[in-house]
């Protein structure tokens, strides 16, 4: 038995979707292959948006993902600037546009619509930014050009921390606010989180922890983000200050809201797919027959970590999972069995001159085995309940981070890891 696979539609033309499409082509799929992207741009790389692009050292041409440098290379049908608004699993059709007039038929579907930034009241004010897309980055970059501004970053997650670092390096006055007791509290233990706070403080950022935002205040909402205001934003009806939950206020010219993302699944609301903080898939990233999901939008049970349902918002996962689901569709068409998708998550973050990498997951059982936290060059291991290595964080120790990733993947115990990584 086999399933027909003469056309594939990929919804989401960013890292995961492009990788899925490239993998299909490289594996010999020569049918119709359409990439639908809601943004008008060819696929580009997002990590530099908070770093080199924002700093002005990279231009847009450098951002283009390699698989899209020559848009004709893989014979994709590009549907850029088109938003998917619905999915009909019965008819195997993706619905495009708000009027729903245009449809795309598929035999195989890749869902890779990613995520969008969370917003709060006040985000509509001129000078208030989120950062996810190239258009967001253009707007923020233009507000950070020229004279020194008072920049307030809400949220000390990776986006917030990287934007704070870049803005500081551009010479702006930066305040970073975090509701939790330490930065990156969702992914880091308290001590390494505080090391991030100290890193920023040493570079002159005013880091406020354990305090929430009551509201963002400003004048009359101005034009679109990205407009050249030609002067002080505060005088042009933009943002004026961020009021904190303790009653204090931070006068601000530019505000960046980095408080996480929400998976982009609205278009699937009536599709019948299981949606719960993402598109819920089986352990091979399949959400329905011939329908797979990858990247920030996908949630699947990772058998490497006891089948825990995961949704991973990381660059490396988008590449790996995108490639995996491309192969998954081909296997489905041939009715072949496949190994489950069971990666060891890994990511990096560059802040100032530090490269921070985390493989696997942190736990309370943390142990520095190389270097030290005060010198900001260290390897910290995290043990699971049975003494196995489940995570490792490395600061300016990339070789160790990758070795740790491999040790986690093969189920090494702590004593083995200590020996290899000290």
């Amino acid at each position, binding site marked *: 038995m086999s399933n027909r696979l003469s056309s594939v539609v990929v919804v989401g033309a960013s890292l995961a979707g492009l990788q899925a499409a*490239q993998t299909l082509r490289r594996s010999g799929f020569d049918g119709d292959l359409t990439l639908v992207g809601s943004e008008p741009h060819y696929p580009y790389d997002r990590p530099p948006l908070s770093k080199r692009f924002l700093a002005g050292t990279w231009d847009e041409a450098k951002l283009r993902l390699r698989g899209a440098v020559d848009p004709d290379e893989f014979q994709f049908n590009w549907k850029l600037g088109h938003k998917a608004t619905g999915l009909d699993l019965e008819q195997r059709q993706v619905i495009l546009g708000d009027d729903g007039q245009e449809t795309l038929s598929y035999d195989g579907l890749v869902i890779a619509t990613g995520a969008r930034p969370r917003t709060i009241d006040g985000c509509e004010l001129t000078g208030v930014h989120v950062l996810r897309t190239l258009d967001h980055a253009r707007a923020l970059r233009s507000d950070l050009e020229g004279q020194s501004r008072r920049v307030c970053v809400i949220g000390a997650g990776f986006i917030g921390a990287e934007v704070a670092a870049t803005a500081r390096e551009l010479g702006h006055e930066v305040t970073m606010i975090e509701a939790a007791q330490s930065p990156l509290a969702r992914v880091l233990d308290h001590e390494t989180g505080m090391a991030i706070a100290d890193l920023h403080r040493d570079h002159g950022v005013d880091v406020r922890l354990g305090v929430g935002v009551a509201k963002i205040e400003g004048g009359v909402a101005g034009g679109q983000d990205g407009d050249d205001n030609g002067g002080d934003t505060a005088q042009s009806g933009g943002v004026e200050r961020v009021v904190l939950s303790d009653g204090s206020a931070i006068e601000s010219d530019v505000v960046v809201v980095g408080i996480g993302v929400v998976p982009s699944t609205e278009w699937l609301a009536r599709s019948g797919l299981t949606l719960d903080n993402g598109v819920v898939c089986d352990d091979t990233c399949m959400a329905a027959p011939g329908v797979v999901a990858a990247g920030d939008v996908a949630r699947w049970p990772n058998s490497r970590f006891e089948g825990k349902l995961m949704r991973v918002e990381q660059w490396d996962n988008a590449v790996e999972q995108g490639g995996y689901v491309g192969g998954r569709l081909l296997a489905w068409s041939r009715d072949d069995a496949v190994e489950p998708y069971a990666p060891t998550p890994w990511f990096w973050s560059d802040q100032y001159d530090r*490269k921070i*990498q985390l493989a696997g997951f942190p736990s309370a059982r943390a142990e520095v085995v190389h270097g030290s936290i005060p010198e900001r060059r260290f390897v910290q291991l995290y043990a699971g309940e049975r003494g196995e290595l489940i995570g490792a964080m490395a600061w300016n120790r*990339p*070789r160790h*981070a990758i070795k740790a*990733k491999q040790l986690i993947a093969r189920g090494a115990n702590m004593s083995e890891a200590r020996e290899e990584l000290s």
Partner: protein
Amino acid sequence: MKIVVDYDLCESNAICMEVAPDVFEVRDDDFLYLLTENPSEDQSESVLIAAERCPKQAIQVITE
């Protein structure tokens, strides 16, 4: 097949070393070293994956 690494882009994330350890090596000095510029047929698949997985897209693979 020939490998060219753009060392201005490379930040030694070492993902390439994970994927193709017989071709890429990040050493104790935290720099990337190419163990060969002309990988064999057997190595070519992993080299292509390494190039794709590089977070800085610093690895270029030239095929004739």
